[in-house]
């Protein structure tokens, strides 16, 4: 090793905020806006522009579903912050690749 402090010690801080909540939040807001737009404010001209698909509504619903998935993931498997050991991201082994539900 070099003489410099290249070797990391175990994380000593309360750690990083949970990105999953932020992704969920962004998609929840986008989802609500697009769903409302799709339900109430999309004109026939808009719909014919997008090949007859009410794409605002469908995108909004898909984003809401995404938000729910991220919210559930973050809520059911919260970040654990152990005192000394390196931060354990997921307390139990999730069923998919690193916790994809």
């Amino acid at each position, binding site marked *: *090793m*070099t003489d*410099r*402090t*290249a*070797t*990391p010690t175990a*994380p000593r*801080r309360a*750690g*990083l*905020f949970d*990105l999953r909540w*932020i*992704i969920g*939040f*962004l*998609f929840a*807001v*986008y989802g609500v*806006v*697009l769903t409302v*737009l*799709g339900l109430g404010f*999309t004109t026939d001209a*808009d*719909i014919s*522009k*997008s*090949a*007859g*698909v009410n*794409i*605002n509504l*469908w*995108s909004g619903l*898909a*984003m809401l579903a*995404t938000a729910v998935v991220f919210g559930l993931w973050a809520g059911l498997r919260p970040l654990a912050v152990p005192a000394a050991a*390196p*931060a*354990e*991201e*997921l307390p139990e*082994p999730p069923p*998919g*690749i*690193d*916790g*994809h539900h």
Partner: protein
Amino acid sequence: MTVLAASDLRLDAGPLDYALLAFYFVIVLGIGYLARRSVSTSLDFFLSGRSLPAWVTGLAFISANLGALELLGMAANGAQYGIPTVHYYWIGAIPAMVFLGLVMMPFYYGSKVRSVPEFLRRRFGKGAHLVNAISFACAQVLIAGVNLYALALLLNLMLGWPIPLSIVIAALVVLAYTTLGGLSAAIYNEVLQFFVIVAALLPVTIVGLVKVGGWSGLVDKITNSPGGGEQLSAWPATDLTGLGNATMSVIGLVFGLGFVLSFGYWTTNFAEVQRAMSAKSMSAAMRTPIIGAYPKALIPAIVIIPGMIAAVAVPQMAALKAGHGEAGLEFNHALPLLIRDLLPNGVLGVAITGLLASFMAGVAANVSSFNTVFTYDLWQDYVVKDKPDEYYLRVGRWATAAGVLVAIGTAFIASGYGNIMDYIQALFSFFNAPLFATFILGMFWRRMTPAAGWSGLVAGTLGAVAVFVLNEVGVLSLPGQGASFLGAGVAFVLDIAVSVVVSLATRPKPEAELVGFVYGLTPKEQRTHSTHGEDAGWYRSPYLLAGGVLVLTLVLNIIFA
């Protein structure tokens, strides 16, 4: 022919679209602010304290490469060449990403170096280190500038914003969050960007497919379009390579794109490797590029397909492809035009946000790798040594600001070049192709000497520059990317040849100093990842994940062959 009016590409963005965009900026800056709290040492700032989980680093890994140049460029290739464009993903990325994860990460992560140049310093000493650190730092700032310029150009076309204003706004946003939160902020935003980019591209792909009558409708229309049915099968891609002979075309793809170019890029480009180095364990570091390979294998569906749809569904694009496009119209406009034609307000705002997000992902990756190399490899190693860590953290923040300023300058230089993609490719073939040759030789041949390290790099880089210059002055006449392919190949061969000759004539480093850097001298335990605790479970095995993505890629190749 009429000159393309500036307003032709103008999107009909309303207040709501701008509100969605503004909300995204707020979140991006908020991430920068939150990430700041977790930065207390330079290692936190430059490598996220080596604490990130693999799914985060894996998505950031792919997002750092998903800059908008890549996005628009690949959609453009989709419009022009069709399905064969997938080679840039399936041949040109997946094998190299798997190789990085399984073969090279154990050395990068296991040796605890903080950057790719630092690996060279420990393996070969100062010569190779200086050559690489300086060339990398310059290249990143230049590429950041090219990205900024491309972003400004697009904003100008789509939204009518003045070019200088767009450059400065985008640069300031990236500057704000990377200076505050360092690599964590960059990486977290890259993960967010990944999802926003998908959210932007998926609706336009779906609506586009509905519009052309589904997949079978697209197949019919492409078959009857100027490109013809060849554009619907991946191999042998003779149009893409420019090699008329099918066998030669396949060989060119596999060795040119698949080996020399892509391995050079994916395995030694610190902007990418840095994402994996910030993972929290050896296993997570190995999994980073492999997890990233899954979306990389699938993303052509929402990038290339919209390009293909644009070529048959947008009249201007169809005309361009038939050879009588309007002046000023380029294939690079395929995606913006499709968005303009298909998306109503609302989703339109998300699409604009996604394009901007992808630009910022590219710039942030350049900037956050630049500041690390500048601070650790240039400033700390050669200029001001042995200061306390807080000093280097501060230097890192200033380097970020300086890098962004230089990038803004570069953005204006880049405007002098007609084809930005060629410019980037040229830069890249100067630096990256010889680097991979030096790495691979140095990792597996303990006899390779420090003198060979730097002389090989210099010879390779000069070889690539020579090819570029010969092509520019007309001695060679290779179209577009052909010169880059040849330049990279020449650089690779020259680097190996010079390295071997010089190694045989000079003295190697003592073997004790090479432990952790050369395959044969590194104990197996140091190269092996743990399989317990948070690295336990069969689904976290890097080898299994790697096998999975290789099978996926193979199946995709067979389906679209």
